[in-house]
């Protein structure tokens, strides 16, 4: 197994909760600068203590994440993270210019000597508002954008693209990716349609904003569909992103997380705007498994409930290790993308050290 550290680069100050887009009335530049610095420090530490990957994501118009363009942040990471892979989980490709995505990821792959993981995501439903795109066309745009990016990475002669959603007269990107023929591609596969698409196209998958039983079902669907398509995914092709906190004792870990939960949380990025969420749902964005997908996003609960639902790994090194073993058995994931409570200062750093030094080496063995 591999250990990854995910930081949303969360704004570490107060902001209005339960709305989206979130107004910036209370925004303070100094807090944002501090949030970036903290994230960079945490990624640097993760790299030093043995994490296999560091991961960044794309979210818009909210303090939940200050990386609307994860490529820019990954650019900064190329100068900080010297050993671990940098996973872009991901670029929300249906709402972006795919050629720009191909160019930026190729730049990052070159800057890191081929250490980029290329996550290609659809983005959360609300984020179709960001660049004014129709969520009804999300899946079709995703599929075409992905195909176009793969062509852009592999064609050596200028070519035109006459797509359904994208049209170009001449494409020939510089630089090209270092990894040959391209960086490993992952996509979200919480919905059955996505799992089937990934299986047909031999892509890795990832889960976030879910519970371990739900992820287990979706992972099994993906593996079964891969078999139908004549291949077996490697465990490393399944990423499970999960909240975690490790401390010296179970009690300390619980105390820490309860404290973090009392501060600004900036959660619910995809569900905060109910009007937007419901119209997105009506466009067919969630696919044929609509209610289960919505339920997954709206699922809330206190700390104890979230631990019981398999949404948080928590405790001492030994406790968290046992939970990871269970997770592996249940979901079959080869990469755990740990999301920490980033605002706990020294205790966050200590959790990163414990995960990197005590848990990551044991994960390599299973």
């Amino acid at each position, binding site marked *: 197994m591999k250990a990854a550290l995910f930081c949303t680069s969360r704004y570490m100050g107060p902001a209005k909760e339960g709305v989206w887009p979130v*107004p910036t009335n209370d925004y303070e530049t100094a807090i944002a600068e501090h949030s970036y610095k903290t994230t960079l420090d945490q990624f640097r530490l993760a790299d030093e203590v043995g994490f296999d990957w560091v991961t960044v994501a794309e979210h818009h118009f909210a303090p939940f994440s200050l990386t609307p363009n994860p490529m820019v942040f990954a650019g900064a990471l190329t100068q900080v993270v010297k050993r671990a892979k940098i996973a872009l989980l991901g670029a929300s490709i249906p709402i972006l210019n795919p050629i720009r995505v191909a160019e930026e990821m190729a730049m990052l792959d070159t800057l890191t000597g081929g250490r980029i993981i290329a996550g290609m995501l659809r983005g959360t439903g609300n984020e*179709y*508002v960001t660049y*004014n*795109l*129709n*969520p*009804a*066309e999300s899946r079709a*745009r995703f599929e075409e954008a992905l195909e176009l990016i793969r062509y852009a990475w592999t064609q050596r002669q200028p070519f035109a693209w*006459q*797509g*359904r*959603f*994208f*049209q170009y007269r001449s494409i020939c990107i510089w630089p090209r990716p270092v990894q040959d023929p391209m960086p490993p591609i992952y996509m979200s596969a919480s919905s059955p349609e996505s799992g089937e698409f990934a299986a047909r196209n031999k892509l890795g998958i990832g889960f976030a904003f879910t519970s371990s039983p739900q992820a287990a079902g979706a992972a099994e669907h993906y593996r079964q569909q891969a078999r139908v398509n004549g291949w077996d995914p490697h465990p490393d092709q399944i990423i499970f992103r999960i909240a975690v906190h490790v401390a010296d004792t179970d009690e300390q870990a619980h105390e820490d997380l309860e404290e973090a939960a009392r501060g600004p949380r900036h959660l619910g990025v995809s569900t905060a*705007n109910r*009007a*937007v969420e*419901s*119209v*997105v749902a009506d*466009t067919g964005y969630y696919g044929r498994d609509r209610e289960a997908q919505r339920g997954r996003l709206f699922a809330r609960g206190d700390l104890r409930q979230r631990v019981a639902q398999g949404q948080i790994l928590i405790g001492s090194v030994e406790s968290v290790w046992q939970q990871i073993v269970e997770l592996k058995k249940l979901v079959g994931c080869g990469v755990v993308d740990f999301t920490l409570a980033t605002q706990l200062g020294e205790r966050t750093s200590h959790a990163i050290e414990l995960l990197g030094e005590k848990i990551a080496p044991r994960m390599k063995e299973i």
Partner: protein
Amino acid sequence: MARKASKKTAKKATKKSAKVAKKSVKKAPKKAVKKASKAAKAVKAVKKVAKKVVKAAKKIVTKKPAAKKVSAGGGFKDKSVKADGFTIRYAEAGKGAVLVSIHGAGGMRISPAHELLAKTYRVVVFEVPGFGTSPANERSATMPDLAATMNKAIAALGIKKFSLMGNSFGAKLVSWMAVQAPETLQSLLLIAPAAIRHDRPRVVANSLEEELKLFHAHPERIAPRPAPSRAILDKQQALVRRLIGPARDAALEGKLKEMPVPTLALFGTVDRVTPSDAAYLYREIIPNCHIGMVYDAAHAIDVDRPEAVSEIVADFIERQEKFLVTGQSGVIHP
């Protein structure tokens, strides 16, 4: 007068540019060719703008002064309704859900945006008592009074549920109408609104030319219409001055804070009369308010960019806050 004045200004501007061009030729003979061609281009550009202004001014002033009965135009039919002892003129076109529109301080006009909206909606454009050829209105003591009259006029037409749009001064009037009868409204549209303003001196136009520049980023898009007489303008201005109230109207804002109607407030990015720097106030004060900036539009947003305005207005009327999620397809080729 105004026509002459704008021609004069245009000529002056052309002469000045030509002078600059000549000067540059004298000053730097080596670069003469390059500079002269640049200057010639500048002269051409000035001439083009001057032509536009003159043309626009011509459109307005060459028409006869307002006759007693002004036709609404654009397929709109002139009608009237009695309310509160007033005979209130209105113009109507189209079928479907009702959109009631209230004009700004300049008086009633059918804008290209009205015409576009009338393709989908039953658009009812009112002339507020005291505007146009109606008798001077000395009975409406306050904006809430006038708002109550206008709500009665709408009720007298048998309209029970509708969207309400107001431009500039009219946006303040419809804001009062909305707080008085929110249950009748599907949505509220505030166009270049003067309902909540920063307290600063009003930008005033002293001539037709200045007014054109102040109100229009694109005077070439103004449709020909008769110019109202001085007497009408004076009467309207006196009424507006008497009723408009303070820039920050605590009584209105207090009520707007409780007003639940989905609201869209639009601002022109080059509007100097009700500039977009007040937009955030609408969002902060009105609970369910969305704000929008219309690019390259001055105060007469719906004349400068009628297509852009009518599209977002129609989308908001149809879907209210759900308009945030576009329904337009991005397909280039199926």
